[in-house]
């Protein structure tokens, strides 16, 4: 097990290096460097700029700068945000965590809904429920998340105005709560705020995953070993869930790795609409203020997350599928 993980890690190093290199080159191509904004700031002195230039090695050739940045990155020093004048690591910690809250809730909802829907569709193909869910799946895949988010906000606002229902819209916490509330109450507050954006976020993955699971289940249910299991006299429930579903879920498990970064990246539009303080709004503000270190580091960190996610799904796959060996 441990050698397997180690070997996978070693294989991932080139991808990570190349990805950071791409991020670095893109930023290098951008007009101006990390200090061009600071240089226009009248309060910044020439000495300060000189210090920062040497600190970040901006007076050295590009490849040396890259290795310096990479070295700093590995030590956890992601550079300085000029917009907020604080270390990038401090800056992106909060938003990254917020994005992960949305992603976490979404993943749970996605599996909780997509698996039963997919299995139901496979067990009763072309029934009314199956047709209805595939109709909904088309709907979920076709509607842009930000448009759906706006529609949801509109519906919520109208319900609020007519019934006075106190469902929070937008933001992460309600400002009206007193400061000395218990941790549990605080977590509940965040959860309530995150619920609607997560549901909207998850609509796409439910739509596609339930279709994939349905197709896989249909295919597995026709296999010989399922007939063998039935011939042995196993109950329907056991055949479906223990024998068929386990294999049908493999592609979904393999895609869990893509879940981490895709949902953080894909959470983007929903975060913007609901003014959820996640990574995308921060990145956009960095973009509009030319805050280059923030852009570059977010890119690097989310790539790292993707790679970790891939490793995770490899491990999960190996754990679930007996045909995959650790060696």
């Amino acid at each position: 097990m441990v050698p397997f993980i180690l070997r996978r890690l070693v294989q991932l190093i080139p991808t990570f290096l190349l990805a950071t290199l791409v991020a670095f080159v893109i930023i290098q191509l951008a007009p101006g460097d990390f200090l061009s904004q600071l240089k226009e700031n009248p309060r910044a002195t020439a000495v300060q700029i000189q210090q920062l230039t040497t600190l970040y090695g901006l007076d050295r050739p590009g490849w040396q700068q890259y290795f310096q940045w990479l070295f700093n990155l590995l030590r956890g020093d992601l550079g300085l945000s000029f917009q907020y004048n604080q270390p990038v690591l401090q800056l992106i910690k909060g938003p990254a965590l917020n994005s992960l809250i949305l992603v976490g809730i979404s993943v749970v909802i996605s599996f909780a809904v997509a698996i039963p829907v997919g299995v139901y569709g496979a067990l009763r193909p072309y029934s009314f429920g199956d047709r209805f869910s595939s109709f909904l799946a088309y709907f979920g895949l076709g509607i842009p998340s930000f448009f759906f988010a706006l529609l949801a906000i509109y519906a919520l606002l109208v319900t609020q105005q007519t019934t006075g229902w106190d469902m929070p819209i937008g933001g992460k916490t309600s400002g009206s709560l007193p400061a000395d509330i218990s941790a549990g109450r605080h977590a509940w507050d965040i959860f309530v705020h995150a619920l609607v954006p997560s549901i909207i976020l998850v609509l796409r993955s439910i739509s596609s995953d339930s279709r994939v699971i349905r197709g896989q289940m249909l295919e597995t249910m026709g296999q010989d070993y399922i007939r063998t299991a039935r011939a042995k006299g196993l109950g329907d429930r056991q055949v479906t869930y223990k024998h068929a579903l386990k294999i049908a879920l493999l592609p979904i498990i393999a895609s869990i790795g893509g879940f981490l970064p895709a949902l953080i990246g894909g959470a983007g539009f929903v975060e913007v609409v609901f003014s959820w303080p996640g990574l995308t709004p921060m990145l956009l503000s960095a973009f509009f203020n030319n805050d280059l270190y923030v852009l570059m580091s977010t890119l690097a960190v989310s790539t790292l997350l993707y790679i970790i996610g891939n490793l995770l799904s490899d491990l999960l796959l190996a754990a679930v599928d007996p045909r995959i060996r650790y060696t």
Partner: protein
Amino acid sequence: MTTTPTPARPAEPRARSQSQWSVVRRQFVRNPLARFGMVILGLLYLTALLAGFLGPYGITEYSTSDRISWAPPTHIHIRDAQGQLRSPFIYGVKRVVNNETFRDEYVENKDVVCPINFLTSRETASYRFLGFIPSTFKLFGVGEGCKIYLWGSDNLGRDQFSRIMYGSQISLTIGILATVISVVLGLVFGGIAGYFGGLPDSLIMRFVEVLSAIPGLFLLITLRALFPINANPLLVFYIVVILLGVIGWGGLARVVRGQLLSARELDYVQAAQALGASDTRVVARHMLPNTATFIIISLSIAIPGYILEESGLSFIGIGIVEPYASWGSLLKLAQDGGFESLTGRPWVLIPGIFIFLAVLGWQFVGDGLRDAFDPRRRS
């Protein structure tokens, strides 16, 4: 590997042989969802083609003297004050301040009556019919003194209906252009990787892996940072197209490579090589046509994805910029007003319906094509 030729059966007098394409066409037409998708897409692309004719106003047209911001959709009447039926007409609007909310509101001014003229000409709003015939003909319009806002107006008092019509041109073309770019890149790089193998193969595939390792939206934002934020609007359009195409070719390249790797060992490829065909010729003329089916399907599946991405980018303000409009940038207005404004002017949500319809239409068509090409799914 050799295949035994199927023995020629004596042809029935009436039976006509079917080519692959006619089989596919028949299967496609028999699929109700695919037909439905084709109808939606047909209507939408027709809209884009006739945008200047359908929209009563130009894309940037607004009045500097009496600006009617956020006007609600104009009510079209067919009964006059006496209750008599007559041809459709609208009333003029006047601005009143709501004493409770202190917001401007527009009410109908029953003194001003403007009949709706069909197939009318407006000299001030000339456009090019079908893109090349100069014309001033509009499907409908109203005389001076009135403004017809079928779907309301925006903050500058521009007609949202006209802007959606023009927006369809950009939203629908970007999807296709970006797909073409990514397919070309995917074919070229996938072709090189699959045919030559070795070092070019591992380099390209590594790069594809890296491209897919960086979250798409973040990569787009970062790449967009390469270009000035307030570049020329037309340049921004091309930047968006190219960025979308450039980051999207990885998946296709991977599959093309896989197909070519297996095709490389086949007899007809070796025969072509033995005849002295150049590498380019072997790949382009003999191997890539084999992947045509796959490319057509992935085209129709990629286009809605790009339409969604473009509208998303424009929605968050890094895509299409003024004076041009796409459905995404029109929907941005809904977001910019803040939550509370939505209940006051829900018609700003209309552009989203168009994005939804376009994506849905392409999905139906894409699924229909996939089923039609797949012999196992034929009915």
